[in-house]
């Protein structure tokens, strides 16, 4: 799907970030094409989460430029990043257990109907749209079920449906497969494929090598705040990536 002539959905040029005397990131360049699944790997402290937080608008970069769909962007808050079409699925999914799936999908952007001066929630429209989104993700999730009664895979579907609601063009997923069962991992990888089919770019931050090799088109390895490798998945191997992560191999 990633043609050579399409503009990259995300382009970072020389991104660097310092926290006081600590250099967390240095000179990171990368591109993500629409419909591409990119794995972001690295050991703890390698700078993955700083990079993700910069893209998501939590931090401002000390150096460098972020271009989104061809134009330079400056995010001062996460809301700004969300406004252009960048969504993050957090590791703990950020779901309210005591609410229904539909309520979670629409949390913070509820559909309302006006009755004179009063705006009341439009439960029907929200449930219908949520069911549609779950259908697109091929997840057997009922909009009216409470999230606390759901399996890990269903929860992932709810969190991902939330990103589909805003028609996000880049979805970053932080360790989506870290704490769920084997069958549910299958479901989550399936969800990533669904996003890809719809032309959404996905950045998968993960420690789990098999998952990265199962869904990603490309893998980026970070080490000590720098990008050490950026290779199509079919030109590398788990062994090489492990060597790059640990530093046994400096760069590729």
């Amino acid at each position: 799907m990633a043609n050579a002539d399409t503009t990259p959905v995300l382009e970072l040029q020389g991104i660097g970030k310092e926290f006081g005397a600590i250099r967390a990131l240095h000179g990171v360049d990368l591109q993500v094409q629409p419909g591409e699944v990119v794995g972001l790997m690295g050991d703890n402290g390698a700078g993955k989460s700083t990079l993700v937080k910069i893209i998501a608008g939590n931090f401002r970069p000390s150096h460098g430029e972020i271009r989104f769909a061809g134009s330079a962007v400056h995010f001062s808050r996460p809301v700004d990043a969300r406004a252009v079409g960048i969504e993050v699925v957090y590791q703990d999914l950020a779901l309210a257990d005591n609410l229904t799936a539909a309520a979670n999908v629409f949390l913070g952007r509820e559909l309302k109907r006006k009755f004179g001066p009063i705006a009341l929630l439009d439960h029907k429209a929200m449930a219908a749209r949520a069911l549609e989104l779950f259908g697109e993700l091929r997840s057997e999730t009922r909009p009216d079920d409470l999230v606390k009664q759901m399996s890990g895979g269903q929860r992932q579907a709810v969190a991902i449906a939330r990103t589909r609601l805003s028609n996000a063009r880049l979805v970053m997923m932080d360790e989506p497969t870290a704490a769920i069962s084997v069958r549910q991992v299958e479901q989550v990888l399936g969800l990533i494929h669904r996003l890809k089919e719809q032309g959404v770019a996905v950045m998968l931050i993960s420690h789990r090598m098999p998952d990265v090799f199962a869904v990603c088109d490309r893998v980026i390895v970070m080490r000590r705040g720098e990008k050490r490798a950026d290779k199509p998945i079919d030109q590398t191997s788990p062994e090489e990536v492990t060597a790059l992560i640990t530093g046994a191999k400096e760069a590729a």
Partner: protein
Amino acid sequence: MAMPMESPISFTNVGKIKWWQRGIFASQTGYVLLALAVLLVIMHFASPYFFTEGNMQNVAKNFSFIAVATLGVTFVIITGGIDLSVGSMMCFSAMITSMVMTELSAPGSPAGSLFVHMAADGKTVLANVPGLILLISILAGLGVALIAGLVNGFCIAVLGLSPFVTTLGMLSIVRGLGYVVSNGRGSFPGGPDADYFYAATSGDVLGVPVPFIYLMILALAMAVVLHHSAFGRHVFALGGNEKAAELTGIPVVRVKIEVYVICALAAGLQGIIISGWLGSAPANMATSYELNVIAAAVIGGANLAGGIGGPLGAIVGCVLLEVIRNGLVLAQVSSYWQQTLVGVIIILAVLVDRIRSRMS
């Protein structure tokens, strides 16, 4: 973006949750309501006086005296907070209301001369605009509650203090202020509008106590707000997962301040209603009522961990407490047993809920 339209999902793996395992049937509120129904039947056989019109009016009135404040505190509990200052707030609002009323009704004073004049006989005080003094004094009472609620909300939401400590402090501050403004004596609603005041707080409409009518209106309003407005949804989200609420862009600080303001206003209104029934606002009024109010909310199914609760539960909790109190009196059991029994019921209600959620 064009999406391939999938056929509707077929639920092969995921069964539908049975009706008795969802909604009210699976909630603490549900079986406390059931327990209440059983209790009412038992009371009917235990005492011939229980289901008399007079006693029912009495019960309706008595539980209305804490139920309005319970509605307010339920909002706070759903967000995962707590408000211990409701008892003091009841007293202070009631006191300010009756003091303002008395002050505005004194013909000699500078404020009073705007609102009242002497009748021709030189003794009777007449209001310039009937009802205006009542309105202003009630607004003054609610105004001080609003300010205290804002301070609570600011300390908790903006400064990040713990709700328990903040409202414990506010309990003491507001009670102390009540003693300061009244010199410890308490105050009485007076002046030409006092009759309206009594009618509006402890009167009847077609045999239904007025406080009960207020309670029903407020409970309905609360049900609509909680389940059919974005604000209500955010209140639940805040109690379910505060971090998620923040990440999804819910204005967490504003919602938190709003619930503490709502709670304080409900307590203030409750205090004003109680003072109408007592005929005065003594400085020690409603002492330790916060415990009854929180107990009623918790028995009715509000979860102190946040995320669960509602107006029906708040009312059921209040009714249960009142029926037990009333029943013990009718059964000629020493009223000293009441507190002990209330404590047992709090623990039982929460215990049964724990067992139920373990089993499912």
